[in-house]
C-alpha cells in the first residue's frame, strides 16, 4: 500500500563517499577532524564539478542557465552530510555539495546539464531542477519557498506510517525567505511539529538585489522565534562551524526538538548564474570576512593543522576531477531525448489523458 515510499534512498549509500575508491561510508560518529575531511572532500568534488559545468557552459555545450554554489559549499555539504537513509533533502540551486554528500550520483548532474535521455529528468526539466523524489531528494520547482511545505508533507507521511528517527532538511536563500510560501511552510512545520531543519543562506544577494531591498530586520535568525523554531546563526565560510551548527540542528530535530532554523552568512562568489557578471557587487564587500572562500579556508585549516599530507590532498583533487570527467564523458556519449519517442503525457493514468482530438 505504501509503495511509493518503499524504494527510498537506494542510490544513496552507494555514493556515500566522496572518493571513487570505495572507502567505507561516512561514519556519523566520526571524530570531528575525520568528518571535516570527509566534508572537505565533497566540497572539492562539488567545486570541481561546477568548474567543469561552467567551462562547458562557456563552450556552448549547455542549454539553459548554470547556477553554482561557489562559496556556499561548506553550508551545503553540512546539509547533506548528516542526513541518513530515509531522511528527506530538499536542496536548491546552490547545493551541489549537499546533493553529492546526500547521495546524488554525479551522472545525475552531468546527464541533466548535457541533456542525456537517461538523466533523472529525461530532458523534460533541466539543470538545477533535478531530483530523485523516490530516493528522498526532492525536485525543486522554480517558485522559491514552495518546497518548504512539500518537505513538511513528506515528514508527515513518514509519521503517519509510524517511521521513527527521520528528519527533513529544506534549503532556502535569504531572498526566498521573503516569499509567502516560505512563511506558510515554516508556520505549518511548527504547527505540525515535524522534524524539519531549514537552512537559510544569506549570501547577501537575491540575483542583483542587496539585503537592504530584501528585508529590514537586523538578523534573519530573529524570525525563528516567531515561528516557534529554534534558531541558530552561522558563519557560512567556516566549515567546522557549519558541521557543528547544522549537524547539531539535524540531531536536535531528529531527537524531537522543535523545528530548527539555521541562518548562514556568506557571500555568493559567482554571478547569480553564469550569464551574470555580478558587477553590482561593490568591491569593498569582497574584502569583508563573510566574503572569504570556505573551500580555501578549509584547506588552510587542513594544512595548518596537518590533517592530511599534501600528497593526499593533491590526490583528492585529481580524483575529484577524474570523477567529474568520467561523469561528463558518460553523459556525452548518451542519446538525447527525441520528440517522437516521447509519449507527451502529463498523467500517470494513461486512460484519463485528455485528447483534444485535432490531430495533435
Amino acid at each position, binding site marked *: *500500500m*505504501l*509503495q*511509493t*515510499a*518503499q524504494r527510498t534512498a537506494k542510490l544513496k549509500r552507494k555514493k556515500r563517499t566522496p572518493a571513487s575508491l570505495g572507502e567505507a561510508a561516512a561514519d556519523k560518529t566520526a571524530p570531528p577532524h575525520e568528518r571535516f575531511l570527509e566534508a572537505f572532500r565533497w566540497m572539492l568534488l562539488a567545486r570541481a564539478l561546477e568548474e567543469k559545468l561552467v567551462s562547458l557552459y562557456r563552450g556552448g555545450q549547455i542549454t539553459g542557465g548554470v547556477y553554482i554554489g561557489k562559496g556556499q559549499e561548506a553550508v551545503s555539504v553540512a546539509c547533506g552530510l548528516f542526513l541518513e537513509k530515509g531522511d528527506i533533502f530538499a536542496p536548491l540551486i546552490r547545493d551541489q555539495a549537499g546533493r553529492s554528500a546526500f547521495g546524488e550520483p554525479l551522472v545525475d548532474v552531468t546527464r541533466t546539464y548535457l541533456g542525456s535521455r537517461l538523466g*533523472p*529528468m*529525461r530532458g*523534460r*526539466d533541466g539543470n538545477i*531542477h533535478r*531530483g*530523485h*523524489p*523516490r530516493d528522498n531528494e*526532492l*525536485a525543486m*520547482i*522554480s*517558485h522559491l519557498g*514552495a*518546497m*518548504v*511545505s*512539500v*518537505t*513538511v*508533507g*513528506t*515528514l*508527515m*507521511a*513518514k509519521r*503517519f*506510517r509510524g517511521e521513527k528517527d527521520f528528519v527533513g532538511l529544506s534549503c532556502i536563500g535569504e531572498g526566498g525567505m521573503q516569499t*509567502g*510560501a516560505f512563511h*506558510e*511552510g515554516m*508556520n*505549518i512545520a511548527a*504547527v*505540525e511539529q515535524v522534524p524539519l531543519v531549514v537552512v537559510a543562506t544569506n549570501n547577501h544577494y537575491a540575483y542583483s538585489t542587496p539585503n537592504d531591498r530584501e528585508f529590514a530586520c537586523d538578523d534573519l535568525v530573529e524570525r525563528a522565534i516567531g515561528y516557534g523554531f529554534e534558531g541558530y546563526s552561522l558563519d557560512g565560510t567556516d566549515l567546522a562551524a557549519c558541521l557543528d551548527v547544522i549537524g547539531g540542528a539535524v540531531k536536535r530535530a531528529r531527537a524531537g526538538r522543535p523545528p530548527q532554523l539555521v541562518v548562514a552568512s556568506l557571500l555568493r562568489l559567482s554571478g547569480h548564474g553564469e550569464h551574470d557578471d555580478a558587477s553590482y557587487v561593490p568591491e569593498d564587500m569582497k574584502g569583508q570576512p563573510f566574503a572569504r572562500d570556505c573551500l580555501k579556508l578549509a584547506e588552510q585549516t587542513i594544512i595548518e593543522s596537518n590533517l592530511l599530507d599534501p600528497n593526499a590532498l593533491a590526490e583528492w583533487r585529481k580524483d575529484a576531477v577524474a570523477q567529474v570527467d568520467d561523469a561528463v564523458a558518460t553523459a556525452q556519449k548518451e542519446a538525447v531525448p527525441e520528440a517522437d519517442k516521447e509519449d507527451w*503525457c*502529463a*498523467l*500517470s*493514468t494513461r*486512460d*484519463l*489523458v*485528455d*485528447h*483534444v*482530438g*485535432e490531430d495533435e
Partner: protein
Amino acid sequence: MSITYLEAIREAQAKLLRDDDRVFIYGQDVGGTFGGAFKATKGLAKEFPKRVLNTPISEDAIVGTAIGAAMQGMRPIVEMQFADFSSIALNQILNNAGTHYWRTGVPVPITVRLPCGGTKGSGPFHSQSMESLYAHYPGLIVMTPATVEDAYTMLIEAVTIDDPVVYCEHKYLYYHLKADKLPDKGLPIGRARIAREGRDLTIVSYSAMTQESLAAAEELAREGFEVEVVDLRTVKPLDTDTVLASIARTGRLLCVGESFPWGGTTAEVIARVTNQGFHLLDAAPQRLNAKDTPIPYHPNLWSAHRPNAKNIVAKAGALLRE
C-alpha cells in the same frame, strides 16, 4: 432514506478514511467537533482524530504539505474552505502537483476539494467556479459532479487515482439535490453522461448547470421540443466523443457553464465540436456563461449574472426555432 449531495461527499470521505489508511483530510476547520464550513467532514475527526486535521489559514502550505505527503505514498484530501481561496494555492496545484509526474515520473495523488459556484448573497469571493483555470494547465484531472451519485463515486475515484484531481463540488447543490441511495459504482471517470435524451438539441453542461439545463429541458418539452442534456462529469478529460454522438443525433448545440465567459469549458467544447463535428451541425453552436463581471452579492444581480433554467429556455428556444 434520502441523502443530499453534501452528505454524499461526507460519506465518500468516511468510506475512504475507513478503507485506506493512506487517506487523510487536511484543511481549515475540517477537524474538531466542527467538521468544516459546510459540514462536509462533520463527525469524521471523531472517528479519525489523527487523520482529519485542521490547518492554519495557509492555502499554499496546505497544498504543498499534501503534495509532499502524496509523494511519500499518502492520499491526502485537501478541503478549500471556498474554491475562491484556492487562488492562494494555485501555484502549488499548477506548478508543483501538475508538473511532478511529468518531470520526475513520481505521481502526486492529491485530491483538492473546491466548494464552487454561486449561492445567494455570497458575492465576488465566495462564489467562483474555477474549473477552467485548472483544466487549462497540464497534469490535472478536473471533476465537476452534477448529481448526488456522482458526487459520491467520483470523490472515491478521485482519491484512488494516482494523479492530482481538482474536485469541484457545487455549493448550490449541497442541499438542493437529493438521492435515495448511494451507488457502489458510477460511470468510468472521463465518460460524459446523457442526463436526458432528446433529438432536437443537445445541451452540454456540468455541475449545477446540468440541473438548470434539465429544468430547462423539462420546460421545453412542454413546448414540444426534445432536448438532450449531456453532463460532462469531468471537464478534463473532456469526453468529446459522447458530445459528438449526441450532436450527430440532434444537429444543434448549446453549451452552458457557470464560470466567466472568456475561454473556459464552453469555449473548449465548441472548439472541439466544430473541429471534429462541423458537418454534424445544422446551426451555429451557442453558449451561455456567467457575465463578464465579478459575481454580485445582491440576489437580484446574482440571479441575472449566472445562467439559469429561464435563460437557458430562452436561448435554447431561439436555437430550436432557427
